[in-house]
């Protein structure tokens, strides 16, 4: 009797299940673009994706516990996190590129101050304390740098932006890697903490002598002065959508890579060195094959057609090589 009722109930709900509804949660950084994607995709296919921007940590946790159909994160999952994912093997699909800019408030100095990774590391660990330090003057002979103390502003909330920035400093400076390391929250030796991009930007804007880091989109939309950072090829590169895509294009994709790749300090003459992927994370084998098919279809659309919505929202589109690598990964999703 019970079974008959259950069958009847299933039959009654079957049409509802066809009008697809996917649940996802994760990173806040790509959320504006994802929201755009989901509404465009729904208009095209009728597949509704409900995305909650609760942060990368929450996205990973929800995927591990299988409370969402897919997750999104700004930092790749660690081996330990992958091991405790309950639904088996997790695929990382890079969806878009982001960059972190260095912004500052130095009276008399506009956008384009030149900085090297070593100088940045020295500023953010508190050993380089004045704007007219020889190390900065040497890089910017034409700039009129005042004798003023440097005040460091950083994110106080755990954030993928902090992860990318400290990942970059770690890869560029062994001293930074040993003493501070990379993480969404790190133990900053100096400086003030601001909440969110707006908090850091507020601190920098209001404090003469301040320096901080914010997302490219935020810096562009608010016309903040940004520094040109020296990349591995030795060129000083301003952050832009093109130079961010160049950072991923210059990268050599290892064969059989799981795409948990860091592209900070990447090769390529025009590569902006503080760039990063953001990922959608999904199980290779989902219990619900219909959902797996819908997710695979959506991801295929996102890495192709979806890319043209990126630039308008200040995200950098994926280079062709990464799109090809994504396709191979999406094909692994069992449907």
């Amino acid at each position, binding site marked *: 009797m019970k079974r008959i009722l259950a069958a009847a109930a299933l039959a009654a709900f079957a049409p509802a299940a066809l009008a697809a509804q996917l649940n996802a949660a994760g990173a806040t950084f790509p959320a504006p673009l994802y929201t755009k994607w989901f509404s465009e995709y729904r208009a095209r296919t009728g597949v509704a994706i409900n995305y909650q921007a609760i942060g990368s940590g929450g996205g990973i946790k929800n995927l591990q516990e299988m409370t969402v159909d897919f997750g999104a994160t700004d930092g790749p999952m660690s081996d330990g996190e992958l091991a405790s994912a309950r639904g088996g093997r997790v695929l990382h699909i890079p969806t878009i590129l982001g960059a972190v800019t260095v912004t500052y408030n130095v009276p008399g100095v506009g956008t384009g101050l030149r900085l090297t990774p070593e100088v940045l590391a020295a500023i953010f660990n508190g050993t380089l304390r004045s704007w007219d330090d020889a190390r900065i003057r040497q890089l910017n002979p034409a700039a009129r740098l005042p004798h003023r*103390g440097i005040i460091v502003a950083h994110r106080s909330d755990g954030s993928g932006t902090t992860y990318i920035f400290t990942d970059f400093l770690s890869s560029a400076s062994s001293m930074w890697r040993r003493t501070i390391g990379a993480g969404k929250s790190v133990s900053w030796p100096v400086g003030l903490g601001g909440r969110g991009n707006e908090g850091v930007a507020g601190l920098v804007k209001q404090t003469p002598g301040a320096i901080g880091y914010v997302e490219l989109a935020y810096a562009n939309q608010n016309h903040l002065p940004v520094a040109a950072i020296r990349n591995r090829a030795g060129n000083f590169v301003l952050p832009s959508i093109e130079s961010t895509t160049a950072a991923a294009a210059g990268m050599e994709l290892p064969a059989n890579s799981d795409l948990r790749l860091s592209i900070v300090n990447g090769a390529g003459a025009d590569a902006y060195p503080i760039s990063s992927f953001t990922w959608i994370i999904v199980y290779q084998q989902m219990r619900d094959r219909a959902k797996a098919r819908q997710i695979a279809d959506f991801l295929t659309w996102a890495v192709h057609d979806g890319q043209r919505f990126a630039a308008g929202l200040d995200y950098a589109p994926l280079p062709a090589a990464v799109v090809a690598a994504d396709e191979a990964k999406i094909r692994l999703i069992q449907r």
Partner: protein
Amino acid sequence: MTDVVEGTLTQPAAAPGGLALPWRLSSASDAVWRGLLVGFGLVIPLLLVGIAAALVHGAWPAVRAFGGGFLTGSEWNPVSDRFGGVPFLVGTLASSLLALLIAVPLSIGLALFLTELAPRWLAAPIAFATELLAAIPSVVYGLWAIFVLVPFLRDRVQSPVSERLGESLGIFAGPAYGPSILAGGVILAIMIIPFVSAVSREVIAAVPRAQREAALALGATRWESTWQIVLPAARAGLIGAVMLGLGRAIGETMAVTMVIGNTPQIPHSLFAPAYTMASVLANEFAEASGDVHRSALMYVALLLLGVTLVVNALARALVWRVERRAAR
């Protein structure tokens, strides 16, 4: 029946439990009613126990890993998973006490002015304006503080004071960043003034008019009647008002987070940035990296709950002692 009610009303202090008639389960409706009330009565204590249990459970890995060292350690390093809670404890207590130092004289002075001196046409709008302060969301206070209060404090208070006194007095030592324990204390003070002053006003107004008149009739000045009659009579209630403000200051999150500088170090100067327990929870919980980090944050939450309980217990003890001395 009316006699009983009147009797208890006119002698409230004689027998607080005077109305507690023995329950007679005369009807089913009584039983339902009783069950309902018992349920309502238990909801809050159960909620508290549940929250405390969840915090202890969540904090347990950190309690096991750091033990009491968490209460003496001042390193907060999510990368190497070493955590200590002292900077947050100090930041919370220092900013809250600073807020009290500013808010209590202002609030009680305001309450005295409104009850003892101000004409009615002036008292009503001032009281209304004060209460409106309580209706402003704390994120709005925070924004105002970022754009107005912090630059003002930095340029007009911190810079000149630290230049003149910073060398000799450590608590005024620079540099003048702006976001600081001072900014946190000032914004908290503004936020708790409506609460402290509203309760103070009620308490002071409750002092019988006859006592003031008696003092004045004996030749006391306005000042003497206020200082020696009204304030002592209202003392217990005023302590309660201050403790209410302190409780609110300790738990306030958003506005403080926006102006205190969020630096996990033990501040040695009023002008140095600091961090509070509530702020670190709001900042780091959503993106906590790994189980130890999350658990250490739970430990901070447990600490915050503990501090709040201790403050409330102290307040109770203080009020009780003051009342007992007054009764003697």
